[in-house]
C-alpha cells in the first residue's frame, strides 16, 4: 500500500511518559526511587554560586595595584557584609582615612595585584526543581535529578508561550469550532487549565490573565495579539521562559482554526482532572512542542504505546492542510502518487490526493499536510 511519512503532533488517550527533571548544575536529589510525587513536590535542589561583583579598590584609592594588600581589611575567603569596609587607607596621622565598603553580602573571593580588582561573591542562590507531573520516581541520577514516570493522556500543541503549570481541566466552549470569547471566562476558572475551541482574542486572554487562569488551550491565536502579549515581535520560536501569568497552548496554529476533533473530545473527556502543561516551544534541531499531560494512575493501558498520528500516511488517513490554499481544512487521503508533480508555483514536489471536508477533491504537496485524529 502507498505509504508516506508526514509530521504529526502526538495525541494519546493513554500512554506512559517519562519526564526527566534535572538540575542545571550538580546538587542534591531529595526523593528516592519508587516515591510517588505530585507536580509541586521538590525533587532536587542545589545552590547556584552567587553573582560576582568586581570592585577596583586600587583605582578608588589611586594606588598602584601591587600596593593593594596593604589596604585590604579582608582577605580572600573572608565573609563580607554589605556597606561594611573591605579596605581602608592609613591616611595622615590617623586622619583623612579612605574606605571602600562592600556593595553586597557574601565572601571575598580574590584580590588581584595585577589589575587592582577585588572580586566579591554574593551568597549562593538556591534553586529547586519540582516534579512537574504527578507520578512515580523511576530513576535517580545521582546529584543531577530524577526520572518520573506518569501514566495518563498526552497531547502536544503546535506552539505555546509560558512555562510549566498545573491545574484542573475546565472546558469553556461547546465544541471545537467555537471561539473562546472573553464572556465565557469567569472567576471560577482561577488556577485552572481552560480549554477553548478555535480561537482566543486579546480581550479573552487578557481577562484570563486577570482572573488568574493557569493555562489556556485553544486552536489558534493571532500574531498581533502575541506581539501585544510579549511586548515584542517574536522572532525565533524559542519560548517557555516568558514571565506571563497564564500559559497559552495553541493546538493548530495562528489565526482562527477549529481544534482537531480528537484533541477536543479527549480534553472534554478529561474535564475535572488535573493537567500539567508547558508552553515551551523550540522549533530548531531537537524540536520541542508544548504539551498537556493528564495523569490517570488507575486507568488501564491499551496495547502498544498508545501514541497515534506519529507515523505513516496512508489512503484513508485524516489530514489537516497546514499551508495555503485550503489552510486549516480537514480531509481524507484518497491517493499517494509516487511521481513528482508540478504545483501552481511550478515547484516539483511529491503530492497526495485529498478529499476535503466540503466534498471537493484536490492535490496537495505532502509537505503541506499533517496527520490528525478525528
Amino acid at each position, binding site marked *: 500500500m502507498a505509504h508516506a511519512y508526514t509530521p504529526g503532533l502526538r495525541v494519546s488517550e493513554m500512554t506512559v511518559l517519562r519526564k526527566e527533571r534535572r538540575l542545571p548544575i550538580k546538587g542534591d536529589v531529595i526523593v528516592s526511587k519508587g516515591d510517588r510525587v505530585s507536580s509541586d513536590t521538590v525533587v532536587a535542589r542545589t545552590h547556584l554560586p552567587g*553573582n560576582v561583583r*568586581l570592585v577596583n579598590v586600587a583605582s578608588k584609592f589611586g594606588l598602584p595595584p601591587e600596593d593593594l594588600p596593604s589596604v585590604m581589611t579582608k582577605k580572600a575567603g573572608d565573609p563580607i557584609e554589605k556597606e561594611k569596609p573591605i579596605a581602608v587607607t592609613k591616611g595622615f596621622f590617623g586622619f583623612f582615612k579612605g574606605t571602600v565598603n562592600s556593595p553586597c553580602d557574601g565572601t571575598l573571593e580574590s584580590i588581584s595585584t595585577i589589575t587592582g580588582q577585588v572580586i566579591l561573591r554574593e551568597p549562593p542562590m538556591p534553586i529547586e526543581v519540582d516534579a512537574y507531573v504527578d507520578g512515580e520516581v523511576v530513576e535517580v541520577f545521582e546529584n543531577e535529578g530524577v526520572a518520573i514516570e506518569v501514566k495518563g493522556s498526552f497531547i502536544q500543541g503546535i506552539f505555546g508561550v509560558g512555562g510549566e503549570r498545573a491545574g484542573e481541566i475546565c472546558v469553556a466552549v461547546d465544541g471545537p469550532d467555537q471561539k473562546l470569547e472573553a464572556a465565557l471566562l469567569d472567576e471560577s476558572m482561577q488556577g485552572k487549565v481552560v480549554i477553548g475551541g478555535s480561537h482566543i482574542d486579546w480581550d479573552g486572554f487578557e481577562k484570563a490573565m486577570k482572573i488568574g487562569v493557569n493555562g489556556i488551550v485553544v486552536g489558534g491565536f*493571532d500574531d498581533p495579539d502575541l506581539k501585544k502579549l510579549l511586548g515584542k515581535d517574536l*522572532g*525565533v520560536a524559542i519560548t517557555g521562559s516568558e514571565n506571563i501569568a497564564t500559559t497559552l497552548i495553541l493546538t493548530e496554529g495562528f489565526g482562527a482554526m477549529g481544534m482537531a476533533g480528537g484533541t477536543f473530545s479527549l480534553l472534554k473527556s478529561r474535564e475535572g482532572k488535573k493537567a500539567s502543561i508547558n508552553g515551551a516551544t523550540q*522549533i530548531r534541531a531537537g524540536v520541542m512542542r508544548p504539551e498537556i499531560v493528564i495523569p490517570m494512575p488507575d486507568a488501564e493501558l491499551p496495547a502498544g504505546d498508545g501514541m497515534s498520528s506519529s507515523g505513516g500516511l496512508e489512503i484513508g488517513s485524516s489530514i489537516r492542510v497546514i*499551508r495555503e*490554499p485550503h489552510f486549516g481544512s480537514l480531509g481524507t487521503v484518497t491517493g499517494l502518487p509516487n511521481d513528482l508533480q508540478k504545483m501552481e508555483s*511550478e515547484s516539483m514536489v511529491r503530492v497526495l490526493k485529498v478529499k476535503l471536508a466540503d466534498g471537493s477533491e484536490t492535490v496537495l504537496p505532502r509537505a503541506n499536510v499533517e496527520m490528525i485524529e478525528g
Partner: protein
Amino acid sequence: MSENGKIRTIVATDCGSTTTKAILIKLIDGEYRLVVRGEAPTTVEAPFEDVTRGVLNAVREVEELSGHTILDGETFIHPSEGDRGVDLYLSTSSAGGGLQMMVAGVVKSMTAESAERAALGAGAIVMDVLASNDGRLPHEQIERIRHLRPDMILLSGGIDGGTVTHVVELGQVVAAADPKPRLGMGYNLPVIYAGNVNARGEVDDLLKEKTALSMVDNLRPVLERENLGPAREEIHELFMEHVMAQAPGYNKLMGWTDSPIMPTPGAVGSIMETIAERRGIEVVGVDIGGATTDIFSVFQHTFNRTVSANLGMSYSVSNVLAEAGIENVMRWVPFKLPELAVRNRIKNKMIRPTTVPQSLEDLKIEQAIAREALRLAFIQHKSFAVGLKGVQQERTISEAFSQSSSGETLVNMMDLDILVGSGGVLSHAPRRQQAALMMIDAFLPEGITQLAVDSIFMMPQLGVLAAVHEKAATEVFEKDCLIYLGTLVAPVGTSQEGKPCLKIETTLPNGTVVNDDIPFGEMVVYPLGVDESVKAKLTPAKGFNLGEGAGKPLECTLTGGVVGLMVDTRGRPFELPTDEHKRVEKLEKWAKAFDAYPA
C-alpha cells in the same frame, strides 16, 4: 582504481542539522567531476543518536544512484580496489547547532572585533562579544557567560608587549563565571587565549584550573595587523577534540575521515577564499538557510564571513518580519493582503517549517521575505567587513583607533566580480530567473557582475576537499557546482523614469545586432547562454557610472548563463515607487522582462 597513489574516487559528506548530504566525485578523462549526490536524515538525535547512521544512509543512496560500490557492510572500502571503494573520504558538520562561541577582547572595535572575525572565519556562530568597554558591568558579563553556555570561548586583548591589566580583567570575568559547556557536564570548557603574550602567566593562573585552556599567538600582535590564522586553526582543532567528540557518533566518524571534520560554514568560506585567490577576483557568496544566513566575501584579498543567526526562511522566517518590518517585506509583493493574514501566514511557516509554497501567490510572498533576509544579512556583512589589510601601510595609530567606528567597508559593489547564491530559496527556486531577481534586488550589484547559484549546495563538501585536494575541489566547483545565471549590467546613478540611462551595442551569438538605448527604470534580458560570451560597448548616460567614471563608455566581454545578459537601469541607489499602483505595475513589468513567473 587508485593507481600510483592517484586519487580517483572521492566521497564527501556534510552532516547538517536536519539532512546529511553525500557527493561522489570521480576522475573522468583527467578531470574531477561530480557523479551523483545522495541525502538522508541526520541521525544525531534519538532514537539513533549516532551521526554515522545518517552518513551511511546518504552514502548508500549515492551507491544506488551511481552503481559504484563504496561500502562493505558498514565500512568504507578504502583505498579503492577496481570499481569499488574510495580514495578519499571527508566530512563537514553543522549538526547539533554548529559551533557556538563567545569571544572577548579589550576594546570592542579593535581586539574584540578581531576575535569575532577569527571565530566567524572558523565557522562559528558568535553568541556574544565581550569587551572591557561594551557598556556592561562585570557582573552582567559574568551572568551572560553563564546564561549562554557556549561551546568555546576565545579570549584576546592587548597588543604584544602592551599593558596586561585589561586583558587580565577579562580573564577574571571568565574565571568568575566558571563557565560550563553547552553539551554535557563531564568536561571543562575550552578557552583559547590569543592576546598579549605578556599576560599569558596571569591568564594561565586564572583559568587553567577551571577551563581547558590553550594559548596561541596574539590575534592582534600590533594595532595595525591581524594574525587570525593560529586562533582559527586552534578553534578547528578544539571543535574536533571537544565539541564534536561530545556529539553522538562523531568519534566513529572522525576515525573514518582522511582529514579533520570541518564546521560547515568554515568549509564554505575556505572554498570561496580559494576560488577568489586562484582567479584573482572579488567574490560575495551567500547561503540562505532555514535558520541562518551566511555571507562570505573576498575583497582586496581579505576574507570575511558573517552569520546572521536569526535570518532565515523557515525557523527564523518570523524574525525576518520582525527585523525588516512588514512594509519592507510587502513592498516586493505585487498584490495586496491584509496585515493580519500576512503575519499569521508567516508565523504558521515558522511553526511548521517544512511546508512548501504551493500557490504562486505564496511563492511570491516567500521570495519577498527572502529578499529582505538577504538584504539585512548583507547590511550586517558590510558593516562587519572592515578589514585592516587593505589600508595597513598608510594607517597611523590614530587611524587604527578609529577604524571600526568610522568603518569604511571593504565591500565595494562596483569591484565585485561574482555573486554566488545558495540555499533552498535560491538553489531550488522553480525558475532560475527568480533566483537572479532575488539576488539583484537584495544585493543591488553595481557595474558589471556575474551571477551564479550553487546548484545543489555542495560548497561545504568542496570546501573541506579544497584543504586536501585543491585541484579536485576547484574543477568540480567550476564544472558542476556553479550554475551561471549570466552577467548583470547595472549603472550607478539615478534619474527620472524614461530618461536616458544606458546605450548597449553588441552582436548576440544568434546574430542579432543590439544597438539599444535603455531608459532609466527598466529591466531587460538578452539571450546569452551558458558558455557563450559577447564583446559589447556600454555607454552610460551623463551622471551614470559603470566603473569607468560618470558617462564614460566601457568595452568589455560579457558572459552568459541560464538567464542571459541582464540589464538593470533602475538606478543605484535603488528605490521602489511609493505609489501603490505604480509599484505593482513596475514589479510585474520587471518580473515579465525576466520571464520569472508563469503568465
